[in-house]
């Protein structure tokens, strides 16, 4: 039994982190009776432990709400919850593509943030109807009029009839539901009898059912038992089940035009169910596949190594299993003199990196060392060929390189007036090129072009620290641009340490080199001899520190009662020595790598 498209509303919620998107989603589910209050877990849509903890959404999730509107009609409302973070812009985009409208949720006290902007522009780009919602209206600091004006100024949409709510207390949630029905358009009414044409919106791995595909039907009808074809992947599967989320999985007989739901079909790997693919019937394929999406490309790379070399096999297993469920995460084996066997991994951005790292450590219990994140450089060789460089350690001989190009981004930063100077300085220090500087009330909106290389380093942390956490930041990629980029090596006692080499802009090399040498000086334990620590470009040393020799290591008192204690200490030291990495005569504890790679430049 499929639903009349006129009674369907497919929508998503666009918001900055912490502006109450998940709370509103929960409230909508509760109000429409999807789950009783008792069944409600805090923010049910963020089902991954990590998502709940960090208050972010990584995978798109969907929920079907049954709502009887004031006009007496029954409606089906499909909410697709989208990730808010720029790293997952690609997932946001395809989720938005599958709906007709968006709720723009803005904190009535804080106003528009950078992330709000990036996401709302994406919604506008896919022709969404947008209903502004001011949340946290119950807070004493709420300034709905000012925030409405800001929405009109900064985003350029009419906010005069914004719905004023408190998702926390449940105030005016009914008005949100009415607005969805009245102000958002229904999906186009496709022919339910035409050949099936559905968009694969997302896919993930379920331990019991195999790969689950979230689909949006445009034409035709999806039924259990049907043989479907993934047109891009050129593979066919029998549909084992069709269903919807309420938000728990519930089987249905069929899904018709305009509807959202899932299918499972014994697909083994997420990679086989490519997001953006068109799902059609095996026997009666549609003649017009959907335009589809270009697969997301990793833009940030880093090495990940097990702290204990003995854990490598466990790590391999964990990485493989993670990749099963995350097609945008790539990996390949890497060997480092410093860190042993590990993987070079590619991510959509820094948050993605952080999320994967935490999942490996938490869900798979592997202790990791992560090397400094690096971006993808495009090398034009003197023979005219092109190469991509993901790992500074793989940098070819400079005489063979004609030009190195690095990725640039367009960054949008919203910041209270008082911190503007500090942010400008930070952007200038990071080779930024100012594009725009405008004001909305007491806040400045800055648009800068920045090399991604400078952003992955520690830009977020610095921005947070110079603005006491008040700035918001978002970015999108622009292009690769040629730059005066060099590989900086770090030498400890004249031995290069591969895990610490990095590609930097020549103008920034000395500062970074000095910072790294100073940091290492504090991190490497003193040896019986003095150790020079140098940063070098090619053969030229650009920064140098000397770690002085340890002068003595001898216990003053050692008598009968000390024998056991001293021996146990010796065992501990011997165990600690196993965690050391040897570089020529110098032993560097792994902790030093971890700390050195987490550097900041003040």
């Amino acid at each position: 039994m499929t639903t009349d498209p006129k009674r369907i509303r497919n929508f998503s919620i666009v918001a900055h982190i912490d502006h109450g998107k998940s709370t509103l989603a929960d409230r909508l589910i509760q109000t429409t009776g999807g789950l009783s209050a008792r069944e409600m877990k805090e923010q049910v849509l963020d089902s991954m432990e990590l998502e709940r903890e960090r208050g972010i959404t990584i995978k798109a999730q969907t929920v079907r709400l049954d709502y009887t509107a004031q006009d007496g009609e029954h409606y089906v409302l499909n909410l697709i919850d989208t990730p808010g973070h720029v790293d997952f812009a690609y997932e946001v985009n395809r989720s938005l593509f599958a709906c007709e409208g968006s709720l723009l949720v803005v904190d009535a006290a804080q106003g528009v943030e950078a992330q709000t902007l990036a996401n709302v522009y994406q919604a506008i780009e896919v022709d969404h109807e947008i209903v502004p919602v001011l949340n946290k209206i119950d807070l004493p600091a709420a300034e709905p009029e000012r925030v409405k004006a800001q929405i009109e100024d900064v985003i350029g949409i009419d906010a005069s009839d914004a719905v004023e709510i408190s998702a926390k207390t449940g105030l005016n949630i009914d008005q949100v539901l009415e607005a969805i029905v009245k102000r958002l358009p229904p999906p186009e009414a496709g022919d339910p009898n035409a050949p099936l044409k559905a968009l694969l919106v997302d896919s993930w791995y379920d331990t019991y059912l195999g790969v689950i595909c979230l689909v949006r039907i445009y034409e035709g009808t999806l039924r259990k038992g049907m043989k479907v074809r993934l047109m891009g992947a050129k593979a066919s599967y029998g549909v084992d089940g069709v269903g919807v989320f309420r938000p728990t999985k519930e089987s249905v007989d069929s899904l018709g035009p305009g509807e959202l739901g899932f299918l499972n079909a014994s697909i083994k790997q997420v990679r086989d169910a490519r997001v953006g693919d068109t799902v059609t019937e095996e026997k009666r394929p549609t003649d017009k596949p959907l335009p589809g999406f270009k697969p997301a490309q990793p833009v940030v790379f880093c090495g990940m190594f097990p702290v204990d070399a003995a854990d490598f096999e466990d790590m391999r297993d964990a990485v493989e299993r993670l990749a099963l469920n995350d097609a945008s995460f790539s990996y390949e084996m890497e060997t480092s003199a410093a860190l042993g066997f590990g993987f070079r991994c590619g991510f959509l951005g820094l948050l993605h990196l952080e999320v994967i790292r935490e999942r490996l450590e938490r869900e798979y219990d592997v202790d990791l060392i992560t090397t400094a994140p690096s971006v993808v450089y495009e090398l034009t060789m003197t023979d005219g060929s092109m190469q991509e460089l993901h790992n500074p350690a793989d940098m070819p001989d400079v005489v063979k390189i004609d030009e190195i190009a690095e990725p640039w981004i367009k960054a949008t930063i919203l910041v209270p007036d008082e911190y503007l100077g500090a942010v400008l300085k930070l952007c200038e220090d990071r080779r930024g090129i100012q594009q725009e500087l405008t004001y909305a009330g007491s806040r400045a909106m800055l648009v800068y072009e920045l090399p991604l290389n400078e952003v992955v380093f520690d830009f977020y942390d610095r921005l947070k620290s110079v603005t006491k956490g008040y700035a918001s930041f978002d970015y999108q990629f622009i292009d690769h641009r040629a730059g005066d980029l060099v590989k900086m090596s770090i030498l400890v006692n004249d031995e290069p340490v591969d895990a610490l080499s990095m590609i930097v802009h020549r103008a920034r090399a000395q500062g970074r080199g000095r910072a790294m040498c100073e940091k290492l000086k504090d991190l490497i334990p003193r040896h019986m001899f003095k150790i020079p620590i140098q940063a070098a470009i090619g053969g030229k040393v650009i920064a140098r520190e000397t770690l002085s020799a340890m002068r003595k290591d001898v216990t003053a008192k050692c008598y009968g009662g000390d024998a056991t204690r001293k021996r146990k200490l010796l065992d501990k030291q011997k165990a600690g020595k196993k965690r050391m990495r040897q570089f020529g005569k110098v032993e560097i504890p792994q902790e030093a790598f971890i700390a050195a790679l987490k550097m900041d430049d003040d």
Partner: protein
Amino acid sequence: MTSPLGLYIHWPYCARICPYCDFNVYRARGAESAPLVAAMLADLKAWRERLGPRRLVSLHFGGGTPSLMEPEDIARIIAAADDLFGLVAGAEIGLEANPMEVARFAGIKAAGVERLSIGIQALNDHDLNVLGRDHGRAAAIKAVETAQSLFERVSADFIYARPGQSLRDWQGEWQEALSWGLGHYSCYQLTYEPGTAFTKKAERGAIVPADDDLTADMFTLTQDLGAAHGLAAYEISNHARGDDQRSRHNQLYWTGADWIGIGPGAHSRWGRPLYGGRQGASAVLTPGGYIKGPSQTFEAVTALEDAQERILMGLRLKEGLNRASLRAATGHDVDPEALARFIAQKLLIDQDETVRLTPQGRLYADRLAMELAPAGD
């Protein structure tokens, strides 16, 4: 063939607790000595039953502050040791004394003690106060003079690298101490042990520990000046004028011989791993518990553990560590790769199967021991 056997007697009470001390010590306030002595005697008897007939080459009263013991209690323990085990001719009987008990020194000698080591620690009132000692400079000098007049063998203990102490300060003090002409000195660098009042103060920043460079210079100065006065260090922190003045008891520890301990928390080691096994024991820790029942906790010391201990201890001696003896006792040897490396770095010499630290190597004795010791799996 059995190793020489020594007896250690731990007297856990002190008049007050020094802020740098992490030993098993307790305030003497109102402490009852009779039941403790009774427990020690019972413990000693049990040791005799456990070990069978052995002769003792040394007795050492340590603590705590054993100079707080009644001379008759000291005499009773010496007599019991002689009855149960028998002392070899010329056995060493030593006791650690606090300068404030100078009035008891004669009684201590009369009880049978022939070697007195006095906890001088410092020679100026300010530093003695910082160290939390109950004596001043005058009392320290008086105690040394009294001991010299009574005992053939007297040792003075010092602590250097005190907060605020300069290299010159220590040089002056060490020189003055050497001018007394004693046969033995122990000079310990002040270390900040976990849980002590000094460590807490250092963590708070209330006192500033001497830095690595200064303590290294002080150590070298201590060695050089001692040697120049005919008292070369025969162990990292111990200086003696000739072999007769050495502590024979302490040498049992450094050479991996046998020793048994009585008193709260006292440790013991006896036997050889390859000849019937080596055993370790430690007594009940608290005086209260020990008085109730002076029981011992035993552990087998494996050949590997014994080898590690022999290396840790033996390297500290001027004579060094004999590898043939090490192998005969334990079946293990020092790590050949580390040995070659340290020889090349002139931190060690290996002559006639004996590994000795060079003066430079002494500065790194712990590090060298760690790398030379064989590792478990």
